């Protein structure tokens, strides 16, 4: 038991102190952690931030992430919403720079048509398979 504790202690102290992703010394940008004064604007900014992907912590939205770049992206979104820009224009601006990947809302385009058509096709297939059952019940 003593050896185990010692091993844990040695392991803990031997680990490098510096994280793989360093952070800057600057405080978070304005609006990265503070809301807009206008509740309506804040709501639309929040809704947009929840559908934008964080670039350094992929798999999280910028609303969820504590990465500095996500903070800067939130600040950018809030700043632009406050300036009267439409959420979809901000999304388009980001997609123009990082590709559709940055957005969690897939665009309707030939590549994603199967995605949008799949639910309809599956419901259709399900109805087709179940049609015999419906007939029998009516009898």
């Amino acid at each position, binding site marked *: 038991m003593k050896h185990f504790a010692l091993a844990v202690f040695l392991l803990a102290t031997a680990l490098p102190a510096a994280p793989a992703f360093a952070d800057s010394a600057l405080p978070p940008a304005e609006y990265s952690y503070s809301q807009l004064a206008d509740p309506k604007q804040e709501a639309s900014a929040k809704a947009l931030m929840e559908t934008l992907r964080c*670039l350094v912590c992929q798999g999280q939205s910028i609303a969820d992430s504590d990465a500095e770049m996500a903070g800067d992206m939130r600040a*950018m979104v809030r700043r632009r919403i406050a300036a009267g820009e439409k959420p979809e224009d901000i999304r388009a601006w980001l997609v123009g*720079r990082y590709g559709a990947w940055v957005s969690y809302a897939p665009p309707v385009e030939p590549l994603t048509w199967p995605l949008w058509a799949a639910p309809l096709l599956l419901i259709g297939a399900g109805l087709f398979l179940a049609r015999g059952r419906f007939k029998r019940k009516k009898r």
Partner: protein
Amino acid sequence: MKRRLIIWIPLAVFVIFVATVAFSLYAPAERVIRSRMIGKPVPAFALEAAAPGHQGLTSADLAAGQPRIVNVFASWCVPCIAEAPQLLALAGQGIPIDAIAIRDRPEDVADFLAKWGDPYQRIGSDRDSRVQMAFGSSGVPETFVVDGQGVVRYQHIGDIRPEQVSEIAAAYEAAK
């Protein structure tokens, strides 16, 4: 007979679904996000100087007739230290290199340059990653080649390794 076959369709769809999920789980996710600004003019910006002894950087500086390299870096970024000798080598070949310092303080940038060498002509200070986003850059370090008309021609993501110096130099030559 036909009916028998149809019965298996849901199971087949389910198997395809599970196979797709399993495949996506184990395939490494695409971690590198390329900028869509390649072939487009540099976004309009004007950044203040990021370090004493250097001028700031504006989009006009990047459309001055000669191609330039723009290095996106930060004093707090560890891989930026790793690529410093490679940038010095490129500067030594007479390639003009400007920089954008992300979320940085002048004293920290000055320290960084004193320690690891200074290959830069102009350095703009991008305190809230605004210009970085406008470039479609998603991290530090990244290196762009901009041609004489101010059109982004090339993007290198991550630190420049010694064996990649010639790639960057070739991209610079191609932008002439």
